[in-house]
């Protein structure tokens, strides 16, 4: 049974989506490879705050609820070169410095408004050609790819079907999930 049908059975309205516990999706971050990045606990809070700022919670779960921060740690640990992993770690120091200079406290302690402002500013200014990554845009890209490839979003909002059993070459856009085009 898919989540939507389950919601109907439970008599929940669409508004209730965000309050339905995620265990109903059957995917947890425990399925990801273990974190090998060496990020400390405080920095993990900052990472969680970053993904939460980029894609906040609402009627539809945000990136933090869908554990995208765990996905980022898995990807950085497994799929990127050592230099990038080091720049990823030092990036947290840079963000901390920017955050305390601008607002006097750590990124995860800022208000939502302050976090948004800071990320917009840093995204526009971080353009170091000598680095393999620019920290803030890098986290943003991974947040988006982790969110968009999550079970919840793929199944409930992107029309993902593993076993479509059909191909229609002339399909009207108005009937597609991309009808907003």
């Amino acid at each position, binding site marked *: 049974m898919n989540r939507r049908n389950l919601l109907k059975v439970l008599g929940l309205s669409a508004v209730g989506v965000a309050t339905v516990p995620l265990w109903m999706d059957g995917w947890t971050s425990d399925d990801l490879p273990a974190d090998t990045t060496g990020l400390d606990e405080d920095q993990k809070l900052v990472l969680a705050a970053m993904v939460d700022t980029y894609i906040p919670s609402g009627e539809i779960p945000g990136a933090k609820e869908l554990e995208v921060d765990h996905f980022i740690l898995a990807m950085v640990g497994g799929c990127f070169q050592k230099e990038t992993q080091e720049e990823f770690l030092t990036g947290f120091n840079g963000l901390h410095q920017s955050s305390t200079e601008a607002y006097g406290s750590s990124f995860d302690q800022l208000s939502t408004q302050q976090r948004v402002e800071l990320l917009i500013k840093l995204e526009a200014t971080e353009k170091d050609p000598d680095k393999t990554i620019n920290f803030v845009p890098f986290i943003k890209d991974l947040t988006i790819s982790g969110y968009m490839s999550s079970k919840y979003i793929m199944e409930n909002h992107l029309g993902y079907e593993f076993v479509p059993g059909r*191909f229609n070459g002339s399909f009207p856009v108005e009937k597609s999930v991309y009808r907003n085009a």
Partner: protein
Amino acid sequence: MANFNIDAKTRQSYDAIVIGSGISGGWAAKELTEKGLKTLVLERGKNVEHIKDYPTTHLRPWEMKYRGRLPLDVIEENPIVSKCYAFKDDAEHFFVKDKEHPYVQEKPFDWIRGYQVGGKSLLWARQVQRWSDFDFEGPARDGFAVDWPIRYKDLAPWYSYVEKFAGVSGNKDGLAELPDGEFLRPYEFTKVEQYFKEQVAQKYEDRHVIIARCAHLSEQKPIFTEQGRTQCQNRVVCQRGCPYGGYFSSNSSTIPWAQKTGNLTLQADSVVESLIYDEQKEKVTGVRVIDAKTKETTEYFADIIFVNAAAVNTNLLLLNSTSKRFPNGLGNDSGLLGKFMAFHNYRAKIQAEYDGFLDYTTDGNRPTSGYIPRFRNVRQQETNFLRGYAAGFGAHRSTISNTEGVGSTLKEKLLNPKLGPWRVGSHMMGETIPKETNFVNLSKTETDEWGMPLLNFSVDYDDNDEKMIADYFEQMTEMFESAGFTNIRTSDTHQAPGLDIHEMGGVRMGRDPKTSLLNEWNQMHHAKNVFVTDGACMTSTATQNPSLTYMALTARAVDYAVKEMKKGNL
């Protein structure tokens, strides 16, 4: 008693031995066992049982370790196979890793291999276009290689025979250059593919856009039910192995079929070291096998040997099968074994966009694409290069990913994806000319873990290939422009030979033992009970994906071999 059994080798005899269990070896096994021959199939890799050994087949993207990406250490350890489009997290276990099986590259060659029961039939792109006489007559007409000893009429009934069993989806297009087959219903064009087909038909009498014939069960028939296969479910994750048997592989089709006869012995982890030539009997009597794990050697004997080790490995095996009679490799009196290797030129691509039909998109998935059969030099020589190219063609709606902003504005954009223009693309599949200077041979100094000499590649493109690429860009650009496609970009990947995974030749068919290794029945001129029916037998390459032709040649050769055996001629 200690030395009583000096020869510790177990002697075992069969009616037939098949070396290799890939797409052609699987067919040899099916045909031989169905005809009642006790058959031993030797596979150098591990066993892969249909469904049971497809570990990733049910994984959704979020269940893959890195959402389908390969970890960096795997990519760094495998610079060659990582270039292959299908070498991803969901199928990497079906590919040979670079370090496990090294080879020598006198000239760069990306050798992509699948060592397991089923071979590369698990991984193939499942495209099955027939050859026509315009292809078989190529070498004779244009004066390269040697004349094929067969023509389309010789193979046509065998194409039909294998298509009915394997299951081929396609449309009856009525084209002389790409003969129709025994088709299950075709997959649909997308809106813009259909439009392009019409545009091309209006402008060019001799150019056609069709839906590519593919080895997928687009509909169910009793023969597929009997094999335990069901209709393709359009998942398009074929390289993982299909639990429905929706596409043809040795694992889903020919091997279980052969097993049901009770005549098959399938032995994995068995590296064939050489074919044994008996100087007294003046014939090949069997094969010498190294156990891949224990390295122990065993000899097996049979009346008929089918060599289906995959094109290049078949060359290696025959070159390594030396005897007093054949000091340069089995059946190699001509000295041509390993020479006249060829492949398909897959370097060229073209992309564009189209802004029409924006009310339409596609729904579901399609396991094939559009196809443009060869239109250059088909009926006569008309360009400054020999032969020509076929082309893949596809058109799909793009999605626009707007990732601007932070917070709820970003979230809103991500959750409401928008469709962009149609993305149109094509890739070239060029015929290359087999030449004596394109060859494989054995390293004189280096051996692998099993004591087999390493194979050396000296295969390259030539001027004809470069001219063909230029012509493909020119012709396709013109066709795209006249259809109103925009933002046309051509690209030459400059990839080494090999990545097309269509390496062919080295043990070519021909009429004359002085200039070929095999006769018109894929039978070795000088070792009559040995048959080679994989890519090694190919005299020329044409432009079509070759697997279907290997299947048809195999079924035809088995039919001949068994008749000859019964007549006492082998």
